[in-house]
């Protein structure tokens, strides 16, 4: 026992185990180190995705060919999509912050299956390398769009197979993470931490894990079928052999729509932690947030058809999917209501994470409401496959998940690295990023309404002004991103040492030192009857 306590004095960043240097990280089964491994690998992929996005925006600066031809543009948006969806946003919050925080938040020393956790990261890296191989080798980068729609996905001459296998392996990694979290939440909560006392971030991870587990296998088998179609021509998605490409779309979206909720639920969870902390107030409607989380996870399965309104579907099915799409908007709206009510009459402490959190609510609402334009049948016909869809999607997935990610990193940064960042630079970075974001994506709503299709490297002259604004926006946003990242990287090395609980929060991760010791807790905490994650006085 004495040994154990001695070892626990070293924090997890400094702890010296059997391996040294890099190996001490990539073979570590410590959930905190794995969380950081994910942080570094996911951020690296994120930067590649950002560069590709910048390139696309630059291409659209003027009509006609600016820097790339049509084929390169197709490859660029495909790779941008594959990287951003499968490698950044889907694993983003659960794999980074979920891994780092879940065990600490529930008072455990690690996840239920630490080795499986490490295996998930390795699978993630294998998936990453497979996709990168698809880009560098063979007859050019994939050009199908991230959705790999049949029949083009098995007709195109580009190097699609490694990308598909990569996506499959990434899915497997995601499944194992979800499985691990589910078992951890069920089995490893500390004494007294009942379900009705779980922090909301944990609750959203729980909902997310179920979606990861139950939706990902469907896209897995679908991608396998596309690969087999390419290899052998089994015919299931090939109209020439009697197969049905629409069936591919159904199977693909049965996963990929719930995947949107894999992305957004943990983001909502992080916001649900940040808002009460910086309002110093009990979260408003704790149970309503849980219920809406589970409702989103459940109803989110049943709305995939709204991606296919114009693809060929019976009228009955269209009504059904449209109605459910409107229903799934309600739980999200409940959450927005709860966050705002939490801030009402709270002791608001304006810090960087709250700036991000508040701007999250703003962009998320615009993204969500524009989603209803796409969810109703008549308007969807008009804006389908236009820049409007791109704007909506990025408002939700980049505005929602991205902003929540930056909120989360600024919130938990002191805990992760044990150091504070430069507040003024962090706020400046946020402001520049926010302005750039609005300038980048808002014009696309207008452009889409006016009829500019998405996924073209060229456009008519009448769309020029909107595209100029959008491209300028992309430069401003990236400037903000650089400020944020430089500030964080610098502060991780040289920032002032952080206190145990710099934000005066009540959840368990703030009761351990910053950075946490190897085993998180010397003694497993016990939650008393009147304790709770949001008991602010």
């Amino acid at each position: 026992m004495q040994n154990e306590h001695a070892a626990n004095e070293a924090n997890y960043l400094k702890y010296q185990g059997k391996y040294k240097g890099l190996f001490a990280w990539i073979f570590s089964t410590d959930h905190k180190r794995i969380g950081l491994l994910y942080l570094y690998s996911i951020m690296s992929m994120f930067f590649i995705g950002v560069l590709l996005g910048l390139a696309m925006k630059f291409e659209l600066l003027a009509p006609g060919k600016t820097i790339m031809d049509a084929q390169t543009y197709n490859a660029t948006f495909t790779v941008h999509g594959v990287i951003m969806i499968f490698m950044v946003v889907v694993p983003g919050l659960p794999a980074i912050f979920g891994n780092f925080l879940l065990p600490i938040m529930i008072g455990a020393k690690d996840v239920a299956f630490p080795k499986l956790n490490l295996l998930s990261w390795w699978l993630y890296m294998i998936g990453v390398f497979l996709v990168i191989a698809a880009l560098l080798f063979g007859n050019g980068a994939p050009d199908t769009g991230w959705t790999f729609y049949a029949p083009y996905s098995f007709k195109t001459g580009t190097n699609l197979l490694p990308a598909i296998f990569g996506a499959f392996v990434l899915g497997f990694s995601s499944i194992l993470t979800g499985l691990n979290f589910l078992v951890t939440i069920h089995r490893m909560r500390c004494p007294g931490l009942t379900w009705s006392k779980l922090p909301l971030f944990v609750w959203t991870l729980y909902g997310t894990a179920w979606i990861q587990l139950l939706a990902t296998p469907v896209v897995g088998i679908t991608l396998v079928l596309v690969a087999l179609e390419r290899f052998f021509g089994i015919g299931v998605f090939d109209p020439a052999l009697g197969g049905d490409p629409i069936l591919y779309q159904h199977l693909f979206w049965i996963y990929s729509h719930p995947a949107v909720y894999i992305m957004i639920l943990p983001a909502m969870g992080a916001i649900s932690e940040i808002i009460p902390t910086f309002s110093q107030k009990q979260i408003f409607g704790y149970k309503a947030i849980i219920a809406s989380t589970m409702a989103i996870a459940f109803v989110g399965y049943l709305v995939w058809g709204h991606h296919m309104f114009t693809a060929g579907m019976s009228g009955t099915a269209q009504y059904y999917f449209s109605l459910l799409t409107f229903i799934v908007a309600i739980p999200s709206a409940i959450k927005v209501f709860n966050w705002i009510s939490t801030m009402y009459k709270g002791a608001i402490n304006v810090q960087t994470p709250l700036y991000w959190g508040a701007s999250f609510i703003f962009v998320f609402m615009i993204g969500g409401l524009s989603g209803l334009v796409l969810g109703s049948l008549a308007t969807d016909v008009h804006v389908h496959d236009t820049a409007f869809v791109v704007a909506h999607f990025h408002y939700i997935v980049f505005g929602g998940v991205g902003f929540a990610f930056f909120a989360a990193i600024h919130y938990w940064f002191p805990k992760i690295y044990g150091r504070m960042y430069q507040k003024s630079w962090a706020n400046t970075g946020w402001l520049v990023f926010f302005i750039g974001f609005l300038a980048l994506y808002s014009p696309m709503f207008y452009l889409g309404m006016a009829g500019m299709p998405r996924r073209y490297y060229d456009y008519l002259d009448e769309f020029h002004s909107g595209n100029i604004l959008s491209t300028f926006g992309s430069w401003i946003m990236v400037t903000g991103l650089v400020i944020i990242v430089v500030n964080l990287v610098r502060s991780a090395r040289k920032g002032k040492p952080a206190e145990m609980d710099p934000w005066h929060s009540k959840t368990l991760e703030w009761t351990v030192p910053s950075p946490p010791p190897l085993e998180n807790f010397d003694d497993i905490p016990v939650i008393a009857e009147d304790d709770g994650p949001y008991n602010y006085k």
Partner: protein
Amino acid sequence: MEQNAHIEHDHYDAEASKIGMWLFIFTELLLFGGLFVVYSVYRYVNPDAFHLAAEELNTTIGAVNTILLLVSSMTIAMSTSTLQYKKKGATLALLAITTIIGIVFLVNKYFEWGVKFSHGIWPGSEHLLNDFSQGEILFFGLYFVMTGLHALHIIIGLVIILVAAYRIHKGTVNENRAALLENAGLYWHLVDLIWIFLFPLFYLLT
């Protein structure tokens, strides 16, 4: 690392492993679920062609394989009880029988596929593409994909069983720490169960 080993040592949680395996089984069911959806759609669209193509399959071998898998499910279930009664030898013998049955299943499958190949029927073969209707092409495409994926699961199941047998032999899996064997059994039952659905869908529904 030592420290982590210590944590895992302390935290042997059979219940957690079992929940983990059940969750994994859900994902497997959904993986095959996707294929069953594809099968149902195309059976609905091409009832006659599916009927015709199913006549090509050898019901006898299919039935034999079904019986084999059912027996193997029984033997692996028995092995978990014998382990509880601390009969290590009997447990290992039952696992050996399960493994042999699994291999016999694969051998049968090999010959079954071999006959199809010798008739010129495989996905994308010229004979299949030129002389068969679209529905039949789909039937055989799905037949090879689904039974092939199932055979892959048999192989994975056998590997898990062999690992469990090795651990039992070494004594690290025993009557007090039986989670690995129980999970191997659960997985094997899953593989069995999927075959129980594949057999009627491909061989009997003609």
